[in-house]
């Protein structure tokens, strides 16, 4: 399709009362901030007039420029110059492509918007065309699995979750995990994420723990989420949000990694019992995977170092340091 052959628009000033300003069939904007656009219009005016299609009834539908019109309305402007196409001259697909390329030229789509684009395309072109032509335009690999994932993202996720995703407050990986749990569970998990204001890393960790622990307990996610465990922590008196987050993740970790947590606690007890001098620290390797433990000594000069080493070598019970479990052989 060569749009240019059909695109003979005329430009005139349109009163906003004549424009259907709902997002409409061609809109691909979601979760955006209007403020930067408002400022830009205040500073330099409308550089690129919106593109509208005139319907037989005489009213207008927005092809491209939904956000611009929203910004103008915010500024209490009542009319603006627009480019107008006649409904009889352009097909739905052409309108869609005009919007797509208008957007691609000026910005990067967020993940939800990519889902919207792909979802709209399903009624306009074949799946093959979407995979091979449109997904690369959106910076996505031409994989059918990716395609279906974005469709699910658009169709199944709740608006609040989509806003988090669109605004970069949630990663695609977390959205994928949320899609894997049912709608009710998803909302409950999202409530937790919002209530505790969890960052992206914690969000992923939380969902991972919840799915893993439910699997291990052989209970549905919903049953685990309904346990008092969560509400007890959320309602803990005198705890601020970061303390609640800490308490929640500690409790989840104990459930998920009982042997590891026990070993870490035993190791730390052993170290505490030694009563090491201030500035002397012994730490275990991550997960005790490497065979080597670490000793750190803070000192101001050689004399202090010598003194600390002397005390350390005389220390009774250093032999307890090591793996805090019984070796087999």
């Amino acid at each position: 399709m060569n749009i240019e052959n059909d695109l003979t628009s005329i430009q005139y000033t349109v009163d906003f009362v004549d424009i259907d300003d709902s997002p409409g069939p061609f809109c691909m904007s979601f979760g955006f901030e209007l403020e930067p656009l408002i400022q830009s219009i205040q500073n330099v005016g409308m550089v690129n007039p919106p593109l509208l299609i005139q319907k037989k009834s005489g009213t207008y539908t927005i092809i491209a420029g939904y956000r611009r019109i929203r910004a103008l309305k915010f500024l209490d402007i009542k009319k603006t110059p627009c480019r107008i196409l006649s409904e009889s001259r352009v097909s739905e697909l052409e309108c869609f492509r005009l919007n797509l390329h208008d957007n691609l030229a000026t910005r990067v789509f967020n993940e939800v918007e990519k889902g919207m684009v792909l979802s709209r395309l399903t009624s306009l072109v074949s799946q093959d065309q979407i995979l091979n032509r449109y997904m690369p335009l959106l910076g996505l690999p031409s994989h059918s699995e990716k395609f279906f994932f974005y469709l699910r993202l658009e169709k199944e996720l709740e608006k609040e979750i989509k806003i988090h995703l669109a605004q970069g407050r949630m990663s695609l990986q977390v959205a994928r995990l949320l899609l894997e749990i049912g709608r009710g569970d998803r909302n409950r998990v999202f409530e937790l994420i919002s209530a505790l204001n969890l960052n992206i890393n914690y969000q992923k960790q939380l969902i991972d723990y919840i799915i893993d622990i439910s699997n291990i307990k052989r209970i549905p996610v919903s049953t685990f989420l309904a346990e008092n465990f969560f509400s007890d922590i959320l309602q803990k008196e005198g705890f601020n949000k970061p303390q609640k987050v800490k308490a929640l993740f500690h409790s989840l970790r104990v459930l998920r990694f009982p042997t590891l947590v026990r070993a870490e606690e035993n190791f730390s007890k052993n170290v505490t019992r030694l009563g090491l001098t201030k500035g002397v620290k012994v730490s275990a390797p991550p997960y005790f995977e490497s065979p080597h433990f670490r000793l750190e000594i803070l000192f101001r000069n050689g004399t202090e170092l010598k003194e600390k080493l002397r005390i350390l070598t005389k220390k009774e019970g250093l032999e307890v340091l090591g793996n805090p479990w019984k070796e087999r052989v």
Partner: protein
Amino acid sequence: MSKGFIKKVTMEEGALQYDFSRKILKNLRGTPVTERQPGGEKTGPNDSTMGKDILHLLPYKGEFLKPCPGTTDYICCGYQILNLGTNCPLDCTYCILQSYINQPNLRVFVNLDVGLKQVFQQIDKQPDKIFRIGTGEFTDSLAMDPITRLSEHLLPLFSRRRNVALELKTKTTRVEGLLASKYRDRVVLSWSLNSPYIARHEEKMAENLDKRLKAARRCQSEGFILGFHFDPLIHHPGWKDEYLKTLDLMDKYIDPKGVIWISLGSIRFMPGLKPIIRKRHPNSRVLDGEFVTGLDGKMRYFKPIRIDQFGHLRENLEKWHSSLGLYLCMESDDVWESTMGWSPGETAGLSRYLDKRVVEFFG
């Protein structure tokens, strides 16, 4: 599983010029065949079937023989991988191929003769080095043997060399091609074993343990040297007793004196496999354990759990026979020491130990 699991054959342009392709097609008479452009069919690793009912014939452009990609953080066995194809029809829930292979279908490399020629040049150039070679890293060595008849092809070529041991590793009973061959020397037939619980729930398309071990007995009685691999060892309720049931079956069917080696490997996988297992095998229990990030970035059980697994297996296997060529797969020196009572120290040490077994069994 009969040959009928292949629903379609696709061939890369030019694949038909190889004898091996023609032989395979003869064995699949009646199966639809289509030609396909190189890289023509794309899939993400999450695609649910991975095209395991389509056989794709293509020439391989890489090296056929490569050292096993061990890491310096753990002791590796110094194995060489003979790469004759990728992907596997069995679909075990924990299979790492699900995350390794971003190309679908059962792929067989049909320029085998050219590839093997290069491999043997390399082997023959180093007569003092022992090459322990396996074909079961990127597929099951025998799952497709009734179609490819690869074993018939490989056995005579390997049997006549003095510095090799070819290991064919499987979870199947597809040994007819092997038994029909007259060659036995320099060949190790190995079975991957697990607990009956894991075999039932996580290796659903593989043969059950009884059948695997009966096939092994048949091969042993026909003069083949055997190997076994308890890999991946998986923690599950009642695991200790469950693994003992497998040891009982081994005792029932196998003469331990004819076993060249038994490896023990605790489950490990790249983190990317986890969401794939969750999605493709939602009822699998393999993700239940206490996994931590290993020094090589792979997920593995927290060390004392691995030590418990290895210790239990070692103790009971050694009650069966004292010289089984037991070794740990991708483990650290300290885990070796605490479970086996000794350590090869490094990859070269384990290689020497296994090479010695080769010499003891094949001269």
